[in-house]
């Protein structure tokens, strides 16, 4: 404290607070160095209320600390600083504009509640986009005409082949193994009750009503929905979609409609195929456990009706439209930049799978209520 005392000129000598027009007038004088500023800092800022003017004409010396005080006074109270000597003003100018970044750094961090709100708002905005897209698709399909607005069947068949025929291996393998695993898991507990044969009912019903459609839709989302998003997204990034647009083609009709239609057409075929292979997987396990084919077949036909197959196929149409539509929508939503296509591809798969499960749940409730 010795140093402070040696220099101590008294707060009154450094700072005088006088009433000014509509506020206060702070008169600073003497040496505004680090020690002096430390002495008067609280008092000066405490007094700086209302309209503040700072008279600094009697300041003889001002270092960084002094400038900080002047800056703070100006920032807090919007006060004007008058009468600075030119050589001091030069020092002070160095610190001018430093207030702004400080303000920005005070930008509040989102509270958890705000984050939830933001995510919610984005979710509903996305939902609105999806509904708008659905509406656009309905209009497109309802108003197909000739000419540039006609449906391009060529593109439909090409997509049908890529999304359907080339997916046979994957869909087949997954369904077959699913059926097989289910039978494996179900056989021992059912054996305890002596009803091993009901494994066929379990595998058959589960495949035909639920797993066949869902597995197919998920494979479709991973293979084709993502491919649609990537194709359309790349075209978007390269402005090829805008180029199509300026050449008289509506991207919704030209790019989206054939893909969605192909998705709707191909999914039921894939589902029937998946059902067959899933049941075959279950049969294989049962055959290995010594059941004759005829008994299995008899059990299957008594367990499954045409109703059950139809219930799965109706879902298939919806899943197909959903996966293809989501792929195209995410493609069209692609933003600019190198990573944008990857983002939309991922998003198409995640959104599709999410929607598949949600829609499947809705189907389950509706089927239950109407007894289908």
């Amino acid at each position, binding site marked *: 404290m010795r140093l402070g005392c040696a220099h101590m000129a008294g707060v009154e000598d450094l700072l005088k607070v006088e009433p000014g027009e509509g506020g206060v007038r702070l008169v600073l004088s003497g040496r505004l160095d680090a020690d002096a500023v430390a002495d008067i800092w609280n008092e000066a800022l405490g007094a700086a209320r209302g309209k503040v003017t700072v008279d600094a004409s009697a300041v003889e010396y001002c270092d960084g600390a002094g400038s900080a005080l002047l800056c703070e006074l100006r920032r807090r109270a919007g006060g004007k600083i008058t009468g600075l000597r030119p050589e001091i003003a030069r020092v002070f100018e160095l610190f001018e504009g430093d207030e702004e970044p400080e303000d920005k750094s005070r930008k509040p961090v989102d509270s958890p509640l705000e984050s939830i709100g933001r995510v919610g708002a984005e979710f509903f905005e996305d939902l609105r986009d999806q509904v708008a897209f659905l509406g656009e698709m309905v209009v497109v399909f309802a108003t197909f005409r000739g*000419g540039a607005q*006609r449906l391009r069947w060529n593109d439909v068949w090409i997509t049908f082949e890529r999304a359907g025929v080339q997916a046979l291996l994957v869909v087949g393998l997954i369904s077959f193994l699913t059926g097989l695993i289910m039978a494996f898991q179900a056989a021992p507990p059912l054996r305890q009750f002596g009803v091993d044969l009901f494994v066929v009912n379990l595998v058959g019903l589960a495949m035909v009503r639920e797993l066949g459609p869902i597995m197919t839709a998920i494979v479709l989302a991973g293979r084709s929905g993502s491919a649609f998003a990537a194709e359309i997204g790349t075209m978007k990034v390269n*402005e090829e979609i*805008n180029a199509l647009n300026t*050449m*008289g083609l509506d991207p919704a009709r030209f790019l989206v409609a054939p893909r969605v239609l192909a998705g709707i057409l191909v999914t039921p075929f894939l589902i029937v195929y998946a059902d067959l292979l899933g049941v075959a997987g279950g049969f294989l396990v049962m055959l290995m456990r010594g059941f004759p084919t005829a008994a299995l077949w008899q059990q299957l036909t008594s367990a499954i009706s045409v109703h059950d197959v139809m219930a799965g196929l109706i879902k298939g149409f919806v899943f197909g439209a959903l996966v293809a539509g989501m792929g195209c929508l995410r493609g069209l939503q692609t933003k600019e930049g190198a990573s944008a296509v990857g983002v939309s591809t991922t998003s198409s798969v995640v959104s599709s799978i999410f929607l598949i499960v949600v829609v499947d749940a809705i189907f389950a409730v509706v089927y239950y209520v109407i007894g289908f």
Partner: protein
Amino acid sequence: MSIQIRNISKNFGKFAALKDVSFDVGSGELVALLGPSGSGKTTLLRVTAGLEFAEKGKILYGIKDVTERSAYQRKAGFVFQHYALFQHLNIFENVAFGLRVRKRSERPSEPQIRARVEQLLDTVQLREFAKRVPAQLSGGQRQRIAFARALAIEPEVLLLDEPFGALDAKVRKELRHWLRNFHDTTHLTSVFVTHDQEEAFEVADRVVIIDKGVVQQIGTPNEVRENPANRFVEEFLDLGRDSVPV
């Protein structure tokens, strides 16, 4: 066909990209939109083409109000800065594309398409490259193919978004002359966007100078050079003169 731009305002969120912009492009005129980057000139061109939509104002092609129409209904020829050629089609098919996708009653016969495409490829002096794909061409060649593709659909207006922006200085100069000559023979109403004042003054009949979404001055190159309307125009042009072309 003339283009009339009437009181166009466009915002991106809170940012006002265009503020009450109005001007006319006469039939057969070649007009440059000149301004620093971020001035709103590309946005204005995209609004004119129907690739973006304005919150306020009208766009007329001739006497037809096209404000509410999409780009595919307006059918303006558009040349993109980064060419936007169809990567999976060869050069011939790129140019022929706009003709092939027409409805049957309007579609030219195969020999007619062939003749038209070959004529366009001659115009841009790239006929021998017909079988290549865009990736095998240089930037200048790709941009000329983009021209040919835009012209194939016989547009009544041609809109060019920094057509020479991605090219080196020498090719840029050549294409500039080529564009001027092309315009002199066809008199196709054209609007092109550039940030290079030398380019604008050399090629355009009239120049529209834009900054911060506001039209600063409209006039022939001479008028603008001799009577800059305000401080911004003066400084922008002077700065342009001193800088080395990139």
